[in-house]
């Protein structure tokens, strides 16, 4: 099963709809609540990063019998130092994101914590693709 979502940049009203849609689809399929929660957390963090840091993008979700692959793709500025970005507490989030309660620099470490596999492909000036795998 494959799901596609558009993620709009700086849209803090609708940010989270892609993750919500994915959570609903996994729930309908009867996946274990624990795995669903890990997927929801990881995808929401990734979706928010696309909204906050990259002017939006899109999400491709592929659900298999024993795992889900979530890909969040943006055409944003890219991440200059991935190792630094992965550190807890590192954040370049703008004030608008902080006003929404985000920007603690916890998102990427949290994605890693909740996923079975995560990879970041990023190119300065071109964008970032984050791929997350959650085993059920």
């Amino acid at each position, binding site marked *: 099963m494959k799901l596609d979502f558009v993620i709009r940049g700086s849209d*803090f*009203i609708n*940010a*989270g709809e892609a*993750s*919500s849609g994915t*959570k609903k689809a996994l729930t309908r399929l009867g996946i274990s*609540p624990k795995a669903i*929660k890990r997927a*929801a*957390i990881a995808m*929401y*963090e990734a979706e928010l990063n696309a909204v906050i840091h990259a002017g939006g993008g899109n999400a491709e979700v592929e659900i298999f019998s024993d795992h889900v692959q979530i890909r969040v793709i943006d055409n944003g500025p890219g991440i200059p130092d991935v190792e630094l970005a992965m550190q807890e507490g590192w954040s370049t989030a703008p004030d608008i994101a902080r*006003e*929404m*309660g*985000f*920007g*603690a*620099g*916890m*998102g990427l*470490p*949290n994605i890693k*914590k909740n996923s079975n596999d995560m990879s970041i492909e990023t190119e300065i000036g071109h964008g970032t693709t984050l791929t997350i795998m959650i085993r059920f």
Partner: protein
Amino acid sequence: MKLIDCAEVLQAEVLVPVADMEIDIKVACGADLMSDVMAFACSSNEMMLTGLVNPQTIRTAEMMDVKVVVFVRGKVPGDQMLDLARDKNICVMSTPLPMFTACGLLHDAGIKGKGE
């Protein structure tokens, strides 16, 4: 403690009820930083108290399976947010109490924090 009794302890107005107001609430968290809620708070039938009023508080609650969002200090979200909560089946209330007092009263009444 039953959700409806939590509301009474908090002197809260229920803005969005859920079908079952008798669900048992055992764990709560208080946070204005949604990043922290995403990273730490994680439990079932959880209640989240917050002073932050924006749609992402409801979205965060949805992702974390938080069943109840309590806005402290008398903050009342707009209709758009209340509709979102209704759509996500999340109970919303507003208490006139400040964060510290609201959390303290719930704790006195037997609600625990995560990991307690």
